[in-house]
């Protein structure tokens, strides 16, 4: 039952795309590609939901041999466990809702059918990546996802910024992909696993348990994580993601929630068993730094989509931090909750943009020129914010767009970590608790630092998300003309918002708190250090709401019962502390935001002036783009010029010199020989033949009787000769 279901899940979106592609060959397009693609996604969603019942708790691999090279066989197959099924549901659900939303949002676009075909291909790629049981399959899906994001970010390729953004996304992620590929090769050759399969006998995970080459294992883990750095937009390869906002907003929702960036986190989680303490720590630090860096940048953005983009980067950092700190379940839990509320935020912002955009259509039908209308909005750094995405043009929209407002508010409350009734609180708390638990269990200064970073990021998240809500929906309209034109979106756009809003409540949390359902895979190379500190008083801590007992999971699963007990206690304590602290920082963030942007008790401009250097740092996004432009691009161009000069002067010089020598000496002498000797022989032979032919041809009289004479005379002669002999 599983194989046909998986096949349907994979083939339905692929078929939708294939129909488009085949008709494209015939220079036609299916008139209702939108309905076809949406139906395909809904079918995949249905099958995924059925799988939830069918598969698990026992992992279920299905593998066939793919290529045999010598005695090495590469297999292709599916691996289904609880995490896979949950990912399938998240991907298909978010993708379905994005499809439905796009029917309204993309209405009237000249390449409307193509958009849906790309969405289908995107979903297929991600689903393929999710179910693959081997690194090669994951890599194929990985690159397909990259390709689709390239196509969709550059969907409005007439716009230079979009064309540049898609190239940037593609190239930046490729930097990570190279690392990932090298990592795979290290696993294959250096560690001598000679396979790309992950599970089962002879798979990478069983081989990892027996290898003791920790150095190469760490290097391989970090290199594979490089792929995730690129795909999931971690520092320092995060710069493509904000630019990816040039794509249509539903694409942003899909990229940020379910497909592209989720792939990185999913890959890191899949690679959980090969992580070593050092590679784990690298992952955790990169995640933590990403979380805080992106959050601080988000504070000062005015483009509604960029705020959300940096928010996504920040949240992805959280997930990486969780996985790096050994909180496998927490990371994936946050991935799913974040998928829903971030998709909701993007679709909501899309709804807002759509409301403004309809007004813009009166002025100018072309997306490409939107940014050129209002030069006063061009900020000092030269990057332009389209006016329909600029929060400074918004305000007071809550009365105009009530559904959008309420659903976005729910998502904001969820992402900010408002306690207990929103899913984001539980997942974020699980991460914070996991990190603090690891810190206390191992008595590790690194993890205490990381916990501090994560806590700060949580507070900042609450701050900038409420800033977005206050600027967009509260207060007085800042741009009266645009405000008058704004309107609530049609039902195809609001229905997905409502569905996603419902999913921002903790409706599926029980799956993640059920320890029998989602089990972290073992990490054979990570044990708690011997000098681990255990809090003496395990009764410290807040057994608030009785939840901590259930969720304080000993996710590392130490073999020693005593150690396991200690870890259990550490995590129980940690979760309670983390919960209280996270509630405090979230409340603080919301309060500050309210004071700054709603009550206007403090002026944001004044603060910005006071802390001008810090503000500039945030505003310029830590100068990452400038660094890349100034150092890497310049360096590359300089190097290219150097090589060009080398090519032109030295290599071309050698080639030309050789050519001249050949021409002048060899060619001349050989030419002489050819002309005189070879041609002479040939001409003499020809002349002799010609002269002989001129004589001999007279034999050919053309009269038939001559020939007969010769024939018969010949016969008589031959017979006479034989008789004489």
């Amino acid at each position, binding site marked *: 039952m599983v194989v046909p279901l998986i096949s349907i899940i994979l083939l339905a979106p692929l078929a939708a795309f294939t129909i488009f592609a085949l008709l494209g060959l015939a220079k036609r397009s299916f008139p209702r590609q939108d309905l076809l693609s949406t139906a395909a996604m809904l079918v995949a969603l249905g099958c995924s939901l059925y799988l939830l019942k069918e598969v698990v708790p026992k992992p279920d691999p299905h593998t066939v041999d793919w290529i045999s090279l010598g005695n090495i066989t590469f297999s292709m197959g599916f691996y289904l466990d609880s995490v896979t099924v949950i990912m399938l549901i998240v991907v298909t659900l978010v993708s379905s809702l994005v499809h439905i939303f796009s029917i309204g949002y993309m209405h009237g676009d000249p390449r409307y059918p193509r958009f849906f075909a790309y969405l289908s291909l995107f979903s297929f790629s991600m689903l393929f990546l999710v179910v693959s049981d081997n690194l090669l399959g994951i890599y194929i899906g990985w690159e397909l996802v990259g390709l689709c994001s390239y196509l969709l970010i550059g969907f409005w390729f007439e716009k230079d910024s979009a064309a540049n953004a898609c190239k940037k996304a593609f190239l930046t992620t490729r930097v990570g992909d190279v690392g990932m590929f090298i990592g795979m090769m290290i696993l294959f050759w250096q560690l001598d696993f000679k396979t790309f399969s992950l599970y089962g006998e002879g798979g990478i995970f069983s081989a990892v348990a027996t290898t003791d080459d920790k150095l190469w294992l760490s290097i391989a883990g970090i290199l594979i994580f490089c792929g995730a750095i690129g795909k999931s937009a971690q520092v320092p390869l995060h710069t493509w993601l904000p630019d990816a906002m040039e794509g249509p907003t539903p694409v942003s929702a899909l990229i940020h929630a379910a497909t592209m960036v989720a792939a990185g986190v999913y890959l890191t989680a899949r690679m959980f068993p090969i992580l070593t303490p050092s590679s784990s720590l690298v992952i955790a630090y990169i995640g933590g730094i990403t979380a805080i860096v992106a959050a601080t940048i988000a504070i000062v953005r005015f483009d509604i989509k960029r705020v959300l983009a940096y928010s996504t980067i920040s949240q992805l950092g959280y997930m990486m931090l969780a996985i790096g700190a050994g909180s496998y379940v927490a990371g994936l839990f946050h991935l799913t909750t974040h998928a829903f509320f971030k998709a909701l935020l993007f679709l909501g912002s899309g709804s807002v943009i759509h409301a403004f955009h309809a007004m813009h259509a009166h002025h100018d039908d072309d997306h490409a020129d939107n940014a050129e209308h209002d030069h006063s909005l061009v900020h000092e750094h030269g990057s332009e914010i389209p006016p329909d995405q600029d929060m400074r043009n918004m305000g007071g929209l809550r009365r105009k767009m009530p559904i959008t407002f309420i659903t976005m508010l729910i998502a904001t409350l969820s992402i900010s970590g408002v306690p207990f009734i929103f899913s984001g609180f539980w997942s974020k708390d699980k991460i914070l608790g996991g990190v603090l638990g690891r810190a206390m269990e191992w008595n590790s200064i690194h993890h205490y630092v990381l916990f501090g970073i994560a806590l700060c990021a949580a507070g900042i998240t609450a701050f900038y998300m409420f800033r977005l809500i206050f600027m967009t929906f509260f207060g007085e309209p800042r741009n009266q003309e645009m405000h008058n034109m704004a309107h609530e979106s049609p039902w195809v756009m609001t229905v997905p918002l409502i569905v996603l809003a419902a999913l921002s409540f903790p409706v599926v949390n029980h799956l993640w708190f059920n320890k029998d359902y989602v089990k972290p895979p073992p990490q054979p190379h990570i044990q708690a250090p011997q000098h681990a500190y255990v809090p003496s008083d395990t009764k410290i801590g807040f057994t608030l709401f009785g939840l901590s007992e259930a969720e304080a999971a000993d996710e590392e699963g130490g073999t020693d019962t005593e150690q396991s007990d200690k870890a259990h206690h550490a995590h129980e304590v940690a979760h309670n502390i983390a919960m209280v602290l996270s509630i405090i920082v979230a409340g603080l963030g919301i309060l500050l935001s309210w004071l700054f942007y709603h009550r206007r008790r403090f002026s944001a401009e004044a603060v910005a002036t006071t802390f001008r250097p810090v503000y500039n740092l945030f505003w310029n996004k830590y100068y990452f783009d400038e660094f890349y432009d100034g150092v890497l691009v310049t360096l590359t161009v300089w190097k290219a010029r150097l090589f060009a000069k080398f090519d032109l002067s030295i290599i071309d010089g050698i080639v030309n010199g050789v050519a001249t020598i050949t021409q002048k000496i060899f060619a001349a002498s050989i030419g002489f020989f050819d002309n005189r000797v070879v041609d002479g022989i040939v001409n003499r032979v020809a002349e002799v033949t010609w002269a002989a032919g001129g004589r001999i041809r007279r034999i050919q009289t*053309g009269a038939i*009787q001559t020939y007969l004479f010769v024939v018969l005379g010949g016969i008589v002669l031959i017979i006479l000769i034989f008789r004489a002999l």
Partner: protein
Amino acid sequence: MSLQHYLVISSILFTLGIFAVLTRRNAISILMGIELILNSCNLNFAAFSRFVIPLEEVEGKIIQNIDGQIIAIFGIVLAAAEAAVFLAIILAIYREFGSIRPDEVDTLKG
């Protein structure tokens, strides 16, 4: 009336045919020469059939193997077909060259 009589007659016919083919300056005369040659062949077949293969006695009757005669009949048929095609060719040549003298038809002259 031995075999050698017939063979001598047929070889004389053959030689006369060859002589005609070699010397006559008219395509139809050449055709007549060819007919003579064919007749000499047929005569040879019939003669060999009569004299070389021994007679058999089957069910009290003396039976002659007459395969040679049948070949001769086929030869006559062949001569008829050949004559028809030959004359058609002569007509075509006559139309093309205005003559049926074989020494004037020398397009292949070197």
